[in-house]
């Protein structure tokens, strides 16, 4: 039996503003789940706090709608506890790179097999329009009234430089391509990171759908996604244009692979035997 997208719709209707970029991502996720025919009882969707972190409620699977910034460590705990589960982490750029920024590099280098989708709108939406870690320099918001004084984080650059084994960028205005990227990200063995340009139609009047539509371009002809330095060079050289697609992909043993190998080399004992061995 294969499931259609209806099988993945949760009991809640999205609470996002009409036209929010996150609808595009959500629809792409439904499509990706159906294409992969995932079993909702075997899936866990983990989020932090923010508009985009409402997403687990819109999916019929297990979910954790947790604390601001803590989605990644919670998700890693889930996956380590039961490696058979399909674990997806979703959230916004503030969750990922501001309050949760300390967890991101470790999740990348640890390479636990899960998929992290960041809906990047370059602003704080839920708290009504404050400056975000991905906001442009000199960007004006209610909390940066004289312009943003901080250089933005480049999510893809960050992920590449700390050892993520799958790094892609999509746009919620390009649903088919985004679906393909999500399918590949979920299929990837290891930590997959998908940066999704997902405009906030209410508070960000600069980085709008039109803004991104004018700037997004495909990867260069003949681009090979298996070279980290090349991927870094590509994202660091971007000025006006923004490339979409799989920027980097590498097969590296996952944390679980290394753990399994270690486990196989260690003689087993009962807890009682371990206590008695202390005698």
């Amino acid at each position, binding site marked *: 039996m294969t499931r259609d997208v209806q099988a993945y719709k949760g009991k809640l209707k999205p609470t996002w503003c009409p036209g929010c970029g996150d609808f595009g991502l959500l629809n792409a996720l439904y499509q990706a789940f159906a294409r992969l025919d995932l079993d909702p009882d075997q899936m866990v969707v983990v989020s932090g706090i923010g508009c985009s972190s409402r997403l687990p409620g819109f999916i019929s699977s297990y*979910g954790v709608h947790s604390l601001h910034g803590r989605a990644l460590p919670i998700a890693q705990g889930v996956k380590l*506890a039961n490696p058979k589960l399909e674990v997806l982490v979703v959230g916004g750029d503030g969750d990922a790179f501001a309050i949760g920024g300390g967890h991101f590099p470790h999740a990348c280098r640890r390479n636990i097999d899960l998929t992290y989708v960041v809906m990047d709108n370059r602003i704080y939406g839920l708290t009504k329009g404050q400056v975000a870690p991905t906001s442009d320099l000199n960007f004006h918001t209610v909390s940066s009234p004289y312009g943003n004084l901080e250089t933005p984080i480049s999510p893809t650059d960050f992920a590449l430089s700390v050892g993520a084994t799958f790094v892609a960028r999509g746009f919620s205005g390009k649903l088919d391509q985004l679906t393909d990227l999500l399918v590949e990200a979920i299929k990837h063995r290891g930590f997959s990171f998908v940066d999704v340009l997902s405009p906030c139609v209410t508070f960000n009047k600069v980085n709008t759908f039109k803004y991104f539509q004018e700037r997004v371009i495909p990867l260069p002809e003949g681009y090979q996604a298996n070279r980290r330095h090349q991927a870094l060079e590509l994202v660091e050289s971007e000025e006006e244009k923004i490339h979409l697609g799989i920027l980097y992909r590498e097969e590296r043993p996952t944390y679980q692979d290394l753990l399994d190998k270690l486990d196989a080399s260690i003689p087993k004992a009962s807890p009682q035997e371990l*206590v008695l061995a202390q005698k």
Partner: protein
Amino acid sequence: MEKVDLVVRIAGESGEGIISAGEILTMACARASFNVNTFRAYPAEVRGGQSMFQMRASNGPIYSAGDDVDILVALNQEAFDRHVASLRNGGILVYDPAETNPQSRSDLLLYAAPFKEMAVRTLQALQVKNIVMMGVIAQLFAMPLDKLEEIVREKFGRKGQGILDKDLQALNLGAQYAREHIHKCDPFQLGQAEGGGKMVLSGNVAIALGALCAGCRFFAGYPITPASEILETLMVEMPKVDGVAIQVEDEISALSMVVGASFAGKKAMTATSGPGLSLMVEMIGLATIVELPLVLVDVQRAGPATGIPTKTEQGDLFIGLFGGHGDCPRIVLAPTTVEECFYQTIYAFNLAERTQMPVILLADQALAQRYETISVPDFSTLFLEDRLAVTSEEVAKGYQRYRLTPNGLSPIGTPGRPGAYIARGLEHNENDVPNYDQKNHQAMCEKRDRKLDLALQDEHLNFERWGDPSSEFGIIGWGSTLGVTREASLALKAEGQEPDVLYLKLLNPLPREEIVRFLANKKRVMVPEINYTGQLSWLLRSAFLFEPAPLKIAGGRPFSVAEILEKAKEVR
């Protein structure tokens, strides 16, 4: 066999192998069937500063590491100067005459041995000075040399044959020196005690083993003094039982991973000290509101901030009980002995599973890094509890994860099986849907709080009471001070002034009925605790409307028996 009760203190500079020598001596005495109890003091730095290790060994029951030292081993002048006052009248000093001038006390029995010269001149290895010293005192006081050798082999065997040979030579050199050059004129002869079925553990290792026996199969932690041995032990042992232990990027991540693992159905734990607990506070709130079982061990040290990382304190009672925003119930337990570190960790998991809420285990440095002899656990009496799981019939009928029930418990779904739900940090209704209605919030707060009552079922695990129940003088305490309080109460009993003593092991919810029974005939109640504010006194005063007589020291060291006695006599 005649009664033996011996207190040995070894003191020297940090980095001279003081702690390591003390540990080996302790293990050897325990293997010779003595009851042991230890205390250590060391600086937060790896090198420099002064360290000390105290071991008490007896063939009778002991409850503390002892106040008065029978034998002081001083490796340098500063160690002698600092610790000489703790030597009892006519006590024994073992020292290196090249390093220490013991002229300040004339009542002492002096045994001189050139530890350093033997290590450097004879063995060309300054680092074995501590082992030469062990050989000397083992020979002098008939400590089990064969057991010492056995432990030295186990401990240093991995470092290569060359190093091991040097260590064994050092041990024998020290023993030989004592045999040939020191005229023994004291009565202390340890020898071999009777009995078996004993083992020696530190509190931290007991907690780690207790977790494994409780069915814990996931541990995440971040190194922190004085709790790191729990992480280190579980990194070694967890793969042997097909569990996962992981060191993560910070304490927030540690508790987050534990919440994730518990959501996925595993019994899970983290262990930390005060600074880590402070970081974990928000995540405790999440565990409370999503109603997931977990165990959080806090090995308390002196705070606030970095405080005194290597020294004990009982200053985290308030944060353990109340840390977090909003109404955030959790269970708080406090073990009182090393043996209880083992059993109470199992109890903590049982309570967590039973109530679907976080359980905080408040140990402290003095307890967690103390060695004590304990009886080999009787595994046939261990009883493990598991969380209430949702059934497929319930799922078919329409599953409500947070259904309101008389005792507050509602079944948990586990990923991988039918029963999908969203664990939400937002207030939710019975259907795990966000809900901000006041009535719903009231009902959910009641539900989460009501589950605390389920922790009150096992009275014998929640407190310990001894002494004379008719006495109008009582002592109420918690945690690692139990041993010294017990010895003080025995001394008072011998004087015909036995108090009534209540030690609280369950600190939230409080075993209220027993406390009310206890207080019914009390005129004066002394409350000893190692923190500046007197946190248990605050709690008891506000919950039971009486004025306790606190005995409090800011952390840094445990109470002595004499301090408890002195205060008891004043209050009584």
